[in-house]
């Protein structure tokens, strides 16, 4: 083994070295890289390593391709899958259709209820509740019809309350 191994090339040259290896550099960049390779031992070693790895990798060649019947097999599998789906849909289709209709109706009804509750019922209810509360507070308020007219009547009312309890 004659290569000099090293962990890495100059960071700023890694990209260029890969392009150089793949023959993807323009003439000016190629000249820059070649000049750098002449001057930088670690980069030269890394590049030689990379070139050796290309040789190594290309020895094995691509993996085996598909057999001649592959496309037909795929299409047969696709048709079988389609048949299965159609069959499944055939059995469940009425149920699925009923489910969708039920869901649509339920959504519509729910929408109507929510709108009705928010838009029309609430204000009316609020009015009725307000009246009920007002009525409740009236119990504790002095009856305007029976308001004491004099000091004696006030004393009489107080006596009624005290003795009444």
């Amino acid at each position, binding site marked *: *083994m*004659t*290569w000099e*191994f*090293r*962990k*890495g*090339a100059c960071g700023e040259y*890694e*990209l260029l*070295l*890969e*392009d150089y*290896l*793949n023959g993807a550099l323009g003439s000016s960049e190629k000249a820059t890289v070649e000049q750098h390779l002449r001057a930088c031992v670690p980069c030269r070693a*890394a590049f030689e*390593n*990379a070139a*050796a*790895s*290309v*040789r*190594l*990798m*290309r*020895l*094995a*060649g*691509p*993996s*085996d*391709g*598909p*057999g001649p019947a*592959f*496309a*037909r*097999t*795929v*299409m047969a*599998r*696709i*048709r079988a*899958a389609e048949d299965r789906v159609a069959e499944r849909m055939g059995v469940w289709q009425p149920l699925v259709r009923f489910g969708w209709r039920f869901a649509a109706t339920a959504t519509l009804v729910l929408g109507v209820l929510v709108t009705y509750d928010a838009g029309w019922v609430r204000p009316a209810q609020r009015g009725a509740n307000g009246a009920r509360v007002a009525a409740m507070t009236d119990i504790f308020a002095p009856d305007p019809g029976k308001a004491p007219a004099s000091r004696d009547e006030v004393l009489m009312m107080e006596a009624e309350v005290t003795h009444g309890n």
Partner: protein
Amino acid sequence: MAASAAALTLPLDRKAKREEDRELVRLSQSGTESAFEELVRRHQQRVFALVGGILRRQEDVEDVAQQVFLKAFLGIKRFDQRAAFSTWLYKIAVNECWDYLRKKKVRPLVYESDLSEEQVSRLDGIVSADRPPEGPNTRAEARELLERMLSALPEQDRQLLVLKEMEGFSVQELAEILDLNVNTVKVRLFRARGRIMEAYRRRADAQSKAAGVAAAQKKG
């Protein structure tokens, strides 16, 4: 803008193929099964290469490749043709491979045993002499030896190297398929090349030391 610039730089035959693919996709989307079958024929080789490059298990490749085309068929109506059909298909293939590996809970391929001394010296000869393998046996052997070395690399390094050097994918294609920046792919590839040679050197060193010890014991 970038996409149209890329399209302009494509070689003419690739551009024509891409146009034909677009038409076949349109026909497939309208329900013409024979158009999809033609797409399968056109791309089966590359899908096999991609799946084979990731899984490295020949016995599983056909099954996964079939699954890839089945998924493509089921999803083709949703494919909007903004990307090339091949890129879209290869992404399905990559995802399918990862799903498969996840389900099986295996690493793509792991060799437990080390290289023999004879194998190391044969590899040494092949790598430094820069000569192609002589026959099918040598090629199969080279592949087997290489697989052992690749198993020492991190998964992504291994995939990049295999797809680029063995299966012939371009840097641009790899960037698209694996959702990586082109420059990232290049730098990773360059580092991966260093790593595989390092792994090779480690194994070769260990092997020659072991051989030395065995020879010394024999003498003793």
